[in-house]
Structure formats: C-alpha cells, structure tokens
C-alpha cells in the first residue's frame, strides 16, 4: 500500500503574494489571510434549540448568539450563521470539534469546517469602500458595529461577514469566511476591487 504524507496547505497559497498590489504609495486596504484556525459549525437538532443554548452557556460562560452577532469568549469567537446555528472559531485546538462533541452530544450536530473555509481579514481606511463593491450590506459604523454579523453573498458566493474588534487606532476590521474552493476567486475579486486604493497583502496566524 502506498504511503501518503498529508500536508495542510492554504487554498490561497498560490494566489496570495505578500507584496503591495495596485496603486503604489500608502496602502488604503490591508488584506490578511488568517491561517490554521479551528472552526466548528454547531446546529441545533430539531426541537433542541433551547438545550443547545443551555449547553453553550454552560461551556463557554456566555450565551451563544441567537441573532446575527459575534460573541467573544475567553478562547473563542461564537459567530451566528443562521437560525439555531453558529460557528465556534478558535486557535490551537482549544475548541476543536473533538472537545465540543461531548458538550453538544444531546442537543446539536457538529461539523468540522476548519479546512473547509478560508478566513480573510479586511482593514484599512478604504476597507468599507472595497467591500461596498462586493456586498449590499450597510457597513456604516452605526449600522454594522463591532460584533455585527451578516450571512450574505459576495460575488455570488456565500460568505459569513462580521466586524471584529477595531485595530489599534480605531480602524474597523471586517472578517470574511468563505468556502475554501471559492476563496481564490473571491480573493482575486477583492484584489481587483481594491487595486485603486493600494493593497497591503499578507497572512497571519493570529485571529483578529
């Protein structure tokens, strides 16, 4: 039997080139791919939404979002993804699917999405201008504050969009979770949309 060596690689490994893109000078947008995260989809079983909520509160210490919001816990972010369902986003295996299975055994179905999605962080003075070309969601600060979430579409691709904590200096940070196989396409679209502002491109191991 053949021996295989599996190596986890980012779906953006080919498309992401860590150098300035578009107009030269000070970049108006920073596009950062966040790599190596744990992402678990938690979906209540039929009629078990309140049991799931109780289990989540007991485990995380805070209530899981029941409206389009993202909630920070000590070592994870809980992101609304639809009625009676949410994502658990974390790093370093602290909230992996394996550790969550016993918590939700009686109330919810779990699905490991760690390698199924790509996480792109968009920040900078022109972040909203770039996103306005891709999305019809109102990202005005009062309409889309820190912690706001939208399950929506960009460039005909389903995404989960949420606003993370502001970067130092108070600049807004938007996070986009996109299906891995659509990530390269959406990435190229983001590059096209942001070229006129100048883009700083990179990848990071740190969750924003």
């Amino acid at each position, binding site marked *: 039997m053949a021996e295989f060596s599996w190596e986890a690689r980012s779906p953006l490994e080919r498309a992401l080139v860590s150098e300035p893109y578009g107009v030269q000078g000070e970049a108006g947008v920073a596009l950062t791919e966040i790599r190596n995260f744990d992402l678990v989809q938690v979906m209540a079983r039929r009629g078990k939404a309140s049991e799931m909520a109780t289990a989540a509160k007991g485990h995380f210490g805070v209530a899981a979002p029941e409206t*389009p919001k993202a909630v920070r816990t000590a070592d994870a972010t809980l992101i609304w993804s639809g*009625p*009676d369902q949410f994502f658990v986003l974390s790093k370093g295996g602290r909230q992996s699917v394996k550790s969550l299975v016993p918590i939700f055994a009686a109330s919810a179905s779990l699905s490991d999405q760690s390698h199924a999605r790509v996480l792109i962080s968009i920040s900078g003075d022109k972040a909203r201008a770039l996103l306005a070309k891709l999305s019809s969601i109102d990202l005005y600060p009062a309409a889309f504050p820190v912690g706001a979430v*939208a399950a929506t*579409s960009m460039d005909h691709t389903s995404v989960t969009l949420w606003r993370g904590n502001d970067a130092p200096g108070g600049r807004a940070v938007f996070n986009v979770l996109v299906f891995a196989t659509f990530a390269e396409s959406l990435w190229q679209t983001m590059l096209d949309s942001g070229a006129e502002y100048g883009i700083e491109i990179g990848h990071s191991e740190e969750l924003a």
Partner: protein
Amino acid sequence: MRITCPFCGERELGEFTYLGDAKPVRPAPGASQDEVYDYVYLRDNVAGAMEENWYHGGGCRAWLRVTRNTLTHEISSVEPAAGAGARQVVK
C-alpha cells in the same frame, strides 16, 4: 425587489431562490390518483396575493413563506417556513 428575511433583515433578490406556490399540501398515502396528480402538476395562476416558498440560500439558508402580490411584487409578509428554525429574530 428586496425580501426582508425574518432572520437576516432586508436583502436583495439575488440572495434568494424561488421555489413556487406554498399552498399545495402533499396528499395522504392513500389518496386517489387525481389528488396526487393535482398536487404534483396543477397550479393556480394567481393574479394578486400569493403564498410562495423562497430559499435564502445566499444568506442564512432558511426556507421562507412569502406572501407576494404577483401584479405589483408587493410583499406583505415573510415568515419562516415550518422547520426553518424556531426563533424569529428580525421583525
């Protein structure tokens, strides 16, 4: 045209997929051939308010029951379809 998803709020038409008339109900297992034929093939051609099933596939992936006027596209109500999640979060 925009649809106000009870879970997500107001969204553009492109996020939704149209299934069709929400009125037909699957006949009981012992139903006559005519009843099954009616359920599968026969549809009313409504001019006015019509209940329809829509799918918010580009968003929260919930099934919705939308009442739309086929003459004006005016939408008078949007509710989660049965089994689409218990909580209605946006009024």
